């Protein structure tokens, strides 16, 4: 029985099992029996006893029913339906994204065999890409490794001391890259907060494939929260979003992309058919000596205007974010700027950098900003946070300057009405005593603590500080792992 028939049989048996409680199946194999039994176990397992709220919630809801709280609210129902409609629209524009870290490894993935030799394995295709359900490069690498010597090697071989060092990628301007590659380069006008342009380079023309390509790499210093280092692999200090723009000549053969068992999702991108691949095993890394695992990535691929675009990331970014990146691509000469949501349609958005006046209008009081922010910071966001009766504004900055010794500093500056309680967990403050300080004649409090898991990172300064003070009108705070004197200087610059 081929896999397709097996899958159909399996789904049919599962439906029968869930519907009736039993299935009239005959045993196809021991593994198949295991799968059906596993489904049965998943279905019958009862976890309600571990819920802490089961009984109290019942009681609460009954009391509210007795008080007549729940009534048919057409407005709420509209809200639920509107939410569903939005989800539908967004899902139609869903992007996947995937690419391995180094362009050289990508070239190993993509080969150009005669189409007829792979006709049996094709699961999907675009004009210049065929998707084949053979093991990915990483899966093949690991399989070859597990079979014993001779062992496969990666390029670049990071363990090889005598090998030629890989040539670092350039960071060409848009004009330089466009001139080198011979066509106008598309750039995103939107990137999620925290990403900077790490590299933009042209892949050398390959006579065997007759393609030319430009790659832009956006990077973010990896934060341990909310992304799990373990999930991403132990050797990735940075998250990446790669954008590839490839031009195929008339003589070019389609690329072949081995995707293993990764399901393909057909999507619409900028009004055109595209493909989304999620958590594809992309490139191998050595977890322990001799034990290899795969990094996983998400990919979006589509073809437009004579180019193939491929956006991939090693970060578990939500697809709404990747949609915006793809939709924002333009070949007009525009700088990358964060997108702002109009005030009339305001929703909290971590990508926002609200202007001061805009912030003041939203929050309802005058918003202030320090006149001194060290040059090695880039603003990531300024946003208004409203939670019930509490409201405050917070501006976050990230270290981002090649000329400054990297110490992975992050800084947040906040402002709120007087009396606002900064709800910090004792998890951070621990037993550290507070110290009274003076900030330009205003009473302040200083906290120090040493970060522990999950905020420990080899490139981060682990010493964090919170400086909070009040003047006659507002409460302010600075939260950062920057040096003490710089934090104080930033605070005092508010009054200069």
């Amino acid at each position, binding site marked *: 029985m081929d896999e397709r028939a097996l899958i159909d049989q399996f789904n049919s048996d599962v439906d029968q099992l869930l519907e009736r409680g039993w299935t009239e199946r005959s045993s196809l194999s021991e593994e198949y029996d295991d799968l059906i039994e*596993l489904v049965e176990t*998943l279905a019958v397992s009862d976890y309600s006893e571990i819920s802490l709220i089961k009984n109290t919630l019942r009681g609460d*809801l009954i009391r509210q029913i007795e008080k*007549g709280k729940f*009534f048919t609210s057409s407005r709420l129902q509209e809200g639920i339906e509107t939410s569903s409609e939005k989800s539908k629209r967004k899902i139609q524009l869903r992007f996947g994204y995937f690419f391995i870290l180094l362009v050289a490894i990508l070239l190993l993935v993509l080969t150009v065999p005669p189409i007829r030799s792979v006709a049996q394995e094709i699961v999907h295709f675009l004009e210049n890409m065929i998707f084949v359900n053979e093991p990915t490069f990483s899966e093949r690498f690991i399989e070859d490794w597990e079979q014993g010597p001779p062992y496969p090697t990666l390029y670049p071989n990071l363990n090889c001391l005598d090998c030629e060092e890989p040539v670092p990628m350039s960071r060409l301007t848009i004009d330089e890259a466009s001139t080198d590659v011979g066509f106008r380069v598309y750039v995103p006008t939107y990137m999620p907060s925290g990403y900077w342009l790490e590299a933009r380079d042209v892949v050398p023309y390959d006579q065997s494939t007759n393609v030319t390509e430009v790659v832009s790499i956006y990077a973010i210093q990896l934060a341990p*929260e909310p992304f799990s280092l373990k999930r991403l692999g132990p050797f990735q200090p940075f998250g990446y979003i790669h954008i590839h723009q490839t031009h195929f000549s008339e003589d070019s053969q389609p690329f072949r992309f081995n995707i293993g068992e990764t*399901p393909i999702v057909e999507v619409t991108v900028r009004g055109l058919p595209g493909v989304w691949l999620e958590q594809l095993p992309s490139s191998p890394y050595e977890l322990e000596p001799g034990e290899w695992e795969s990094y996983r990535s998400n990919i979006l691929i589509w073809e437009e205007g004579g180019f193939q675009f491929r956006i991939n990331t090693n970060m578990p970014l939500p697809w709404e974010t990747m949609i915006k990146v793809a939709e924002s691509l333009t070949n007009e000469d525009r700088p990358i700027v964060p997108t702002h949501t109009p005030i009339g349609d305001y929703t909290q958005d*971590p990508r926002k950098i609200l202007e001061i006046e805009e912030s003041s209008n939203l929050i309802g009081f005058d918003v202030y900003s320090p006149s001194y922010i060290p040059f090695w910071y880039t603003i990531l966001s300024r946003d208004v946070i409203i939670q019930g009766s509490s409201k405050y504004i917070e501006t976050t900055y990230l270290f981002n300057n090649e000329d400054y010794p990297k110490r992975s500093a992050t800084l947040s500056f906040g402002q709120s009405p007087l009396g606002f309680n900064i709800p910090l967990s004792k998890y951070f403050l621990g037993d550290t005593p507070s110290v009274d300080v003076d900030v330009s004649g205003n009473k302040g409090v200083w906290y120090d603590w040493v970060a522990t898991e999950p905020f420990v990172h080899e490139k981060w300064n682990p010493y964090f500080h919170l400086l909070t003070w009040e003047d006659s009108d507002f409460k302010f705070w600075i*939260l950062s792992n920057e040096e003490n004197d710089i934090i104080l200087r930033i605070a005092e610059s508010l009054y200069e």
Partner: protein
Amino acid sequence: MRGSHNTLKDELVLVKLAINEPSAFTRLYDHYFPLVFKYVLYRVCDTQTADDISSKIFERVLLGIGNYRPEKAPFRAWLFGLAHHVVSDHFRSQSKRRWFSLEVLKGLVSNDPPPEEVVISNEMNDRLLEALGCLTERQRDLVALKVVAGLNNRQIAKLTALSESNVGVTFYRTIRKLRNELKENGVING
């Protein structure tokens, strides 16, 4: 095994009466809470979060149940469609955390379980949850929608924007992956 698609007797009547009759609501709640809780738990793999989200789901159910139309979908499909969106909203809000802002640090407060909490544990259930934690969010979603919510592939496809065929393929491969995970951990033999 009792079929998980089993419908509560007189379900439509109970649904109509639920927002006014505590006894009708109680029957619905007692039937569906274990399923909703398990559905959420399979997706988020955390008991406290599953409690929080289940609570939101039932509040929304009661707020919206007056407008439920049986001719559009079975109640179960409506309920789990709502649950699906609530959980998805939760994941979306989780992804909006920022760097070392108050929002990040505040989030840590709720993550600490009270040490005095007593948890009734079943080893197989625990191992299943652990194994589910190794799946992607999408894979967990499919398993939960199929096995707990009892939706068919067409209904799942509509909710997740996958094709019906992809749902079937992904579900099969996910169960295989789960089985291999459990086998590697010695939970099942084979």
